[in-house]
């Protein structure tokens, strides 16, 4: 069960636990590689907290002189920190809103630089014994919302209406809390920006959604792809011509699976100026094959090769990877 304040506490603990061996690593590894010394501070998404931490670890292994200060308090915390200048790197699991972008430009005089560093997908999950194979957007909307903006003729409240006969009775709904990027994405794509039914149980983390669905055969929920467990079954997404698109990494990478999103890093870098060395080394790592392997390990989806190379070129990173 992950509850936001506790998860945050764990992030802090991880951070602290991680900084201690750093000091030692620094001592014995100093001779290896070019000596980049400095502090890398980031502030932002907690979906990406694990990702940032693993990248940070790999970075320090390469450059023992770098100290990390990774804070994860939600995507909404990144823009204020970037605007105030307390950090140069803001990981976000959603694109910056216009208001946030305007605030940045008003303060610094140039727009923030946006990098796509990984792809993520939402999966609609049901109990592992549920016979249902997939749902289309209209059905999802009819199940989860009471505004039905995707054009479903009637609300769906029972499993029978979805054409399965095993879990009988009411469908129980689970989802993420309001103010999470996960909920916002699901609302935009699956509900056509409509409103959720109040009966949706709101959980403070994707892991809690998956756990709730796994314990109750009559439930359905949505969660981040990287939280899938064997207790639940991920439903495919049915597109308009009736074919099913399973949320496998290849489909997510090609953009064929509708409920997917990009994960971003926002940079504060004045035009014409080079990035400070620690930030540059970090981006070099993130956009390298090794960095993208970390993405896959954590259950996210790596960037398409062409996009990765394009972004490397745009940042004028030497093409080592």
């Amino acid at each position, binding site marked *: 069960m992950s509850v936001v304040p506790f998860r945050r506490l764990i992030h802090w603990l991880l951070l602290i636990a991680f900084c201690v061996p750093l000091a030692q690593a620094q001592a014995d590894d100093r001779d290896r590689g070019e000596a980049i010394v400095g502090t890398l501070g980031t502030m932002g998404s907690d979906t990406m907290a694990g990702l940032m931490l693993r990248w940070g670890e790999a970075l320090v292994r390469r450059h023992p002189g770098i100290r990390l200060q990774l804070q994860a308090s939600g995507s909404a915390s990144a823009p204020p920190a970037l605007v105030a200048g307390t950090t140069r790197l803001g990981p976000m699991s959603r694109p910056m*809103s216009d208001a946030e972008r305007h605030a940045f430009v008003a303060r610094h005089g140039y727009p923030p630089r946006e990098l796509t560093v990984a792809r993520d997908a939402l999966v609609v999950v049901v109990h592992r014994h549920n016979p249902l194979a997939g749902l289309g957007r209209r059905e999802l909307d009819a199940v989860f919302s009471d505004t039905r903006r995707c054009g479903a003729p009637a609300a769906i409240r029972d499993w029978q209406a979805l054409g399965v006969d095993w879990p009988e009775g009411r469908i129980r709904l689970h989802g993420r809390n309001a103010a999470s990027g996960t909920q916002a994405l699901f609302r935009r794509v699956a509900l056509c920006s409509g409103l959720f039914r109040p009966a949706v149980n709101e959980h403070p983390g994707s892991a809690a959604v998956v756990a709730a669905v796994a314990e109750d055969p009559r*439930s359905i929920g949505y969660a981040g792809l990287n939280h899938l467990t064997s207790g639940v079954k991920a439903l495919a997404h049915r597109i308009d011509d009736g074919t099913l698109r399973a949320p496998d990494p290849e489909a997510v990478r090609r953009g064929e699976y509708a409920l997917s999103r990009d994960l971003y890093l926002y940079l504060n870098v004045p035009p014409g100026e080079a990035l400070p060395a620690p930030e540059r080394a970090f981006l070099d790592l993130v956009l390298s094959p090794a960095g993208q392997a970390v993405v896959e390990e954590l259950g996210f989806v790596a960037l398409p090769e062409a996009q990765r190379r394009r972004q490397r070129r745009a940042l004028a990173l030497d093409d080592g990877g």
Partner: protein
Amino acid sequence: MLDSPPPTAVRRRLRQGRDRLATALITAGGIGVIAALLAIGLFLAVEVVPLFWPSGEASAIHAEALWGGGETAAEDATRHRWAPTATLTSGEAPRISLVPLAWGTLEAAAWALAIAVPLALGAAAHSSLFMSRRLRSRLKPTLELMEALPGVVVGFVAGLVLAPWVERHLAEVVACLVLLVPGLLLAGGLRSRLPARWREALPLGWAGLWLVPWLALVLAASVWLAPWLEALAFDGDLRRFLELRLGLDIAVRNALIVGAAMGFAVMPSIYALAEDALSGVPASLAEGAQALGATRWQTLWRVVLPAASPGIFSAVMIGAGRAVGETMIVLMASGNAALMTLNPLDGLRSLAATIAIELPEAGPGGVHYQLLLLAALALFVFTFLVNTLAELVRTRLRRRYRRLGGGS
């Protein structure tokens, strides 16, 4: 080494100085607490002001949107809706009604009190008047230990262990609840019919102990009877009966689970305060009543309870205050679905849980953030009012019963 005591004048000055210091510290502490309380209220109020009187071009929020239904589009069946993130940024009519959250808070507190108050007061009355002194001296610390259990732990157990279990064994739980009271009455009836020799082996003061195996027996019997009960009265499946026949929604994490968990959490404090109040009633009162021919029951009901009523009332009110403000239990044991139903098997969402979940992700200074602080202000004012009311009623009752020499 000088062994002679200091002159008395010096000693007196010293003691006076120490007294003055202590007085100053205590006064400072008291003023500090009051100032902190005022500062919290003031901070919340100041942060909330821009909601209603914005400085820039932002439009003010109408009180109607917060407490009334707001403008309901034709497509939307839900009148009171809390959807700040969805509607505040998209240019739609804001759907930011705090009503479902306030409803959830009160519903959870009401169920918690409905479960905790009878149990806690019954336990307090029994242990202060009927229970043997030795058993009481063991029981009281144990119950007070229950209070030390953190809300997260209670919420965790209720939400992740109890709720799914109750959902799977709904019929057994209902059977236990239905058969518990008749089972206890049966125990009383049987005891009075026992031969005197046996009855002495089961003294009333130790009922708390010898009733335990009997209770276990009753619970086992109701678990055993549950399938029959289900087949007989509910077509073989209670859950289906409730859902399909009565049209009730059943959520795994529902108001009753929250009530049970929070009832468990507030029970020890209600018990402790009520027990103190009841024990504080002078023995002479109860003895006098019994000497005049009142039974124990009449003594309890007519003499001791009224005399202790100020203390009991404040015990219940303190329990209510805690139930309204409790966060983690509601957050973890309810599904946080902002529903407004009277159905105790449906979910709910409280103000405190909403603040805990959403505040970290609401940008400081934004409308959503201010709304959450408004919710906090509402909670603050509410608990403040409840406590003030409790204190007022308590002092009035105490004045009325002082003649009797009643407890605090």
